[in-house]
């Protein structure tokens, strides 16, 4: 009905193109950060939680001076306890930590290729595969024995593949491999260097801290000397992505909110200025029979269009960017394969933070 006045809106936009584009870009950045912060943190959280649950991530791990009677201790602490073999093998350039595959806990997830089937099969983490210049199907010599790399793997207790428990960054060339226990035991160097670690996951998922303390006391009372005791919460190999997510949330939200507030202030100033500059014309149109609501709509049109354009572009940009960014592990499609948590992806996901 007020079509002639609408024609004016486009002309106003065109006249001050530069100013409006600037404001739209500001809103764009704000909405980009906002959707990035909520979206990435949310999908990472889904991936991490999903992987930890599906693959029975341990609640704690420890080693002892003498072997445990697992069945006994499982009953005692109402938990699943599993022993696994661990052995580090040196390579010309790098080092591979071989783990025996978990049967009940820390289930290895094959992310490409085949599962272990025959003696001499080994799975390695995707980053290691890449840095060693290997392909699935290649032969890898470990400690003088020939292994076949049958696929890539992700392990719940090495989401972030740190060599030492208290390392800050992954060691260059260090990788994780999964091989049958018999194959690891058969390695010449394994006899003296391989070690057994215990992983625990409590049946009751609620009071984990209390159950952990109780188990530790019981072990002490029974005369075990416990070494390398670490709970998942403090285990960087497990909790690194959590810190990553929460820092993403805690850093990105203030940034998004700052942009949002700034956008509001600018749009507010813009409306006030337009209405002030145009008050005589608005008054004349009012005198000639325009309703207050019709005039308000007219003066809101430009800021609304500019803000809408900016926020839509920001959201769109974020969608396109995230598609490229998480292509190998979009949470809804492929992220049932936890290959997302290769070191590379995690390091990259860190860099999606606005601060870097």
């Amino acid at each position: 009905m007020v079509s002639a006045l609408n024609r004016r809106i486009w002309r106003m936009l065109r006249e001050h193109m530069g100013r409006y584009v600037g404001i739209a870009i500001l809103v764009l950045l704000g909405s980009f950060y906002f959707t990035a912060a909520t979206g990435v943190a949310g999908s990472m959280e889904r991936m991490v939680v999903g992987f930890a649950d599906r693959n029975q991530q341990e609640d704690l791990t420890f080693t002892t001076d003498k072997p445990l009677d697992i069945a006994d201790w499982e009953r005692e602490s109402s938990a699943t306890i599993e022993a696994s073999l661990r052995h580090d093998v040196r390579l010309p350039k790098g080092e591979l930590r071989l783990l025996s595959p978990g049967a009940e806990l820390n289930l290895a997830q094959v992310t490409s290729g085949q599962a272990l089937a025959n003696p001499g099969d080994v799975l390695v983490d995707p980053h290691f595969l890449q840095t060693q210049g290997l392909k699935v199907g290649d032969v890898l010599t470990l400690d003088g024995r020939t292994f076949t790399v049958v696929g890539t793997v992700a392990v719940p207790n090495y989401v972030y593949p740190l060599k030492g428990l208290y390392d800050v960054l992954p060691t260059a060339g260090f990788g994780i491999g999964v091989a049958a226990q018999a194959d690891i035991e058969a390695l010449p160097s394994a006899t003296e260097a391989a070690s057994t670690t215990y992983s625990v996951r409590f049946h009751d998922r609620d009071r984990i801290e209390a159950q952990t303390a109780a188990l530790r006391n019981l072990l002490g009372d029974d005369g075990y000397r416990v070494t390398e005791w670490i709970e998942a919460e403090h285990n960087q190999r497990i909790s690194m992505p959590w810190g990553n997510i929460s820092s993403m949330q805690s850093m990105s939200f203030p940034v998004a909110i700052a942009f949002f507030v700034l956008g509001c202030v600018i749009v507010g100033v813009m409306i006030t200025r337009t209405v002030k500059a145009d008050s005589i014309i608005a008054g004349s149109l009012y005198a000639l029979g325009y309703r207050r609501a019709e005039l308000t709509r007219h003066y809101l049109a430009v800021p609304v269009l500019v803000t809408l354009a900016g926020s839509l572009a920001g959201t769109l940009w974020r969608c396109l960017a995230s598609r490229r960014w998480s292509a190998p592990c979009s949470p809804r499609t492929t992220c049932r394969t936890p290959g997302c948590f290769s070191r590379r992806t995690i390091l990259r996901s860190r860099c999606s933070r606005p601060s870097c």
Partner: protein
Amino acid sequence: MFLAVSGLQKSYGTGIVTPVLRGTGLELARQRIGVILGPSGSGKSTLMNIIGGIDRADGGTVEVDGERISDLTDDQLLEYRRASVGFIFQFYNLVPNLTAGENIEVVSNISEKPLKIDDVLSAVGLADKKNRFPLELSGGEQQRVAIARAIVKSPRLLLCDEPTGALDLETSRGVLALLQRVNAEFGTTILMITHNAAIADMAHSVYRMRDGQVEEATHHDQPVPAERIQW
């Protein structure tokens, strides 16, 4: 009487209250031209804004064509303005980024039975300037567009607040002649404010205002054509 104002009261300000209208009254017959004369600050614009329904009086009554404007609700007042009143201002107040034709269209868009935009443009003598923007028109031409914009909805009452206040003599004459023609051709009742006494000769009724009151009202049956007015 087409327009009847009586006992109008209006004050501005809280605290120190300044009375602007003090029992103002006037009457104007249908299809006539009335001119309000008076020094600056005497309350002419205030009176006109109340008659036009964009301001409200504190007391007194305004009747237009038998309808008591002073009793209308805000919504009814808006309908009254929309359907019955045309406004013309000293500084034209055209929308700067719309052409002459579009400025007229802005008002025809909210009118129930508007006149044709081209007809109105011809009537004000600007048929060839339809696509010009206000800044590309002279002051007199802009005021003609403003007149066209006001009459496109064929209002019963045309209110002009110092329509020639910003124009030179020759141009003023043309604009006033145009208003006389609108009055004659469309039968629009016109109430015009001016502080130029010479203009009074072109009106049927002249009201002299001072300190918020109409001191004197005179009526002529044969007003002088604007072209013959001497300043």
